[in-house]
């Protein structure tokens, strides 16, 4: 990679040990992808729950944080993805003390490094979204795909070590979706049916993600009959990223880089796939099975204020037989409290958690401790993930999930 004088100084350790470690990591990644140089970034967002980090990852963070290097702090606004717990509700999901201890160690290290603990995967709805053409270094695949596709910002999937490195150096290797050439559509998909509910939007995203199949594919989707809401695109993108590792999609006439299909090269692509209601229902029914439900979870991504409002509305007048978890961000939670949404959910027997995400919170251990196996959710991303954690997940609408919590089955 070509380095400017400042980057050469970082690599030589002249700007401190921490920046040196960070830029060495970035160069190894940049070299792999053939990046010619670095691009400055304005924000970084770090995914770093301790189930992923483990002891080794936390110790790595602590070594950086405890360095004698006084300059070893982030240079740009650097925020965090959900933690592995909501400390105030950890007992409700039977999290062990060692999990909380590890979380506290990780948080202490991040704070020493100057990281702002926003603990959210919906920073584009709650903190500060990127603008068109803005280069950022975001973690959490749902954040990246929304930023690239809906905001027109530019980011690769930046895993925790790379996102932190970007925060510490203020730059990231220029490859992948920072480059115009990778932002053109590669796969043209025609839909003849527009989803209505969030689980359907997620399922459509899952279908498109499976068709795309890998990180370097950029689906162009045509045929939607109305502009989706932010929450709908949140579920659509998060599922597409989860099922297909996709980081960028275009919606013809809707998303900013595809005002016309030709703007992203769509006019030169044949329609490769036609997707209809049957395909979306097929994905939903793939997860259909027994009527038994042990727990209902709304999470992945964290709920927006409007989703919290809708959950609260549907909870009114009900009394749940099953545990119901509604997980939101620390930015949304105070408003949910002020507007009475938290009280309405909890009056029905639900639990509102914030600053975490269900699958990032030791989901396997939670299942064993609580005896949970059959899980209902409206998140297509969550059903895709939890199979590997030993759950039998079921995808249903928010209303169906809440009715299941009341009746005890779906």
């Amino acid at each position, binding site marked *: 990679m070509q380095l400017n004088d400042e980057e050469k100084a970082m690599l030589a350790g002249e700007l401190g040990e921490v920046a040196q470690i960070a830029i060495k990591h970035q160069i190894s990644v940049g070299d792999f992808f053939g990046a010619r140089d670095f691009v400055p970034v304005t924000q970084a967002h770090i*995914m770093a729950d301790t189930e992923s980090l483990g002891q080794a990852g936390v110790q790595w963070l602590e070594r950086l944080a405890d360095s004698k290097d006084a300059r070893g702090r982030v240079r740009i606004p650097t925020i965090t993805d959900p933690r592995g717990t909501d400390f105030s509700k950890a007992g409700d999901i039977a999290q062990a003390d060692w999990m909380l201890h590890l979380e506290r160690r990780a948080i202490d290290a991040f704070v020493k490094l100057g990281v702002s603990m926003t603990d959210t995967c919906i920073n584009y709805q709650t903190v500060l979204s990127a603008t068109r053409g803005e280069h950022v270094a975001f973690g959490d695949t749902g954040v990246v795909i929304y930023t690239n596709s809906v905001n027109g910002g530019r980011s690769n999937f930046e895993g925790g070590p790379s996102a932190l490195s970007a925060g510490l150096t203020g730059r990231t290797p220029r490859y992948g979706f920072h480059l115009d050439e990778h932002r053109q559509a590669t796969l043209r998909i025609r839909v003849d049916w527009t989803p209505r509910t969030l689980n359907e939007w997620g399922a459509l995203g899952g279908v498109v993600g499976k068709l795309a199949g890998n990180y370097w594919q950029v689906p162009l989707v045509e045929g939607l009959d109305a502009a989706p809401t932010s929450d709908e695109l949140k579920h659509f993108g998060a599922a597409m990223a989860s099922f297909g590792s996709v980081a960028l999609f275009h919606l013809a006439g809707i998303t900013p880089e595809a005002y016309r299909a030709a703007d992203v090269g769509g006019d030169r692509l044949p329609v490769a796939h036609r997707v209809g209601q049957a395909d979306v229902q097929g994905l939903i029914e793939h997860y259909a099975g027994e009527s038994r439900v042990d727990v209902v979870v709304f999470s992945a991504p964290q709920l927006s204020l409007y989703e919290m409002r809708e959950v609260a509305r549907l909870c009114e007048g009900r009394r749940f037989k099953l545990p119901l978890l509604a997980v939101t961000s620390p930015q949304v939670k105070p408003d949910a409290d002020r507007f009475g949404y938290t009280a309405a959910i909890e009056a029905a027997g639900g639990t509102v958690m914030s600053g975490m995400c269900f699958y990032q919170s030791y989901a396997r251990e939670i299942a064993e401790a609580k005896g949970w196996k059959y899980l209902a959710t409206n998140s297509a991303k969550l059903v895709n993930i939890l199979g590997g954690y030993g759950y039998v997940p079921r995808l249903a609408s928010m209303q169906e999930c809440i009715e299941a919590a009341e009746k005890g089955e779906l």
Partner: protein
Amino acid sequence: MTELVLHARHAMGSKVTGEALVASDGFSARYDLNRLEGVFSRPTHKLAGLSYVDRILVLDTAKGGVASAWMLHEMRSRNMVPLAIVFNTVNTILVQGAALGDVTMMAGFDEDVTALVPHGARVEVDPQAKTLRVLDANGKTIAAAQPTHGEVPGAAKPVHGPGKR
């Protein structure tokens, strides 16, 4: 008959030799593995139930979320990690994880690597040369089944994405 030596466009890490676990399937440390036991745990994964520890994984593509970037490092700390991971197409996360976790990685072939490398074969992954060599049990290079599966000229395409577009 030609040697079965496949050339990749992208590689990192140390040269390793070991048994290949091959599947036309994806890979995510979060979605697919029981990392405590060192096995593929997703029931629908084609390698479900098999141990990945000290094996060379030859898979189609990197899947899923950003957690794998930390998880390879954590798996390395417990010596419960694959020797190498080889993909047709890789995403950025697995590369970032391999860089932190010191896991050999290779990606970007002109043909489907999962169709060319026999499951259970002994293979050598050489990131310096950007080659994957299929060996027999005695460590010799075996012949390819078809000439088109032999020496694949690589590194000719100046792509930044590590797979066919």
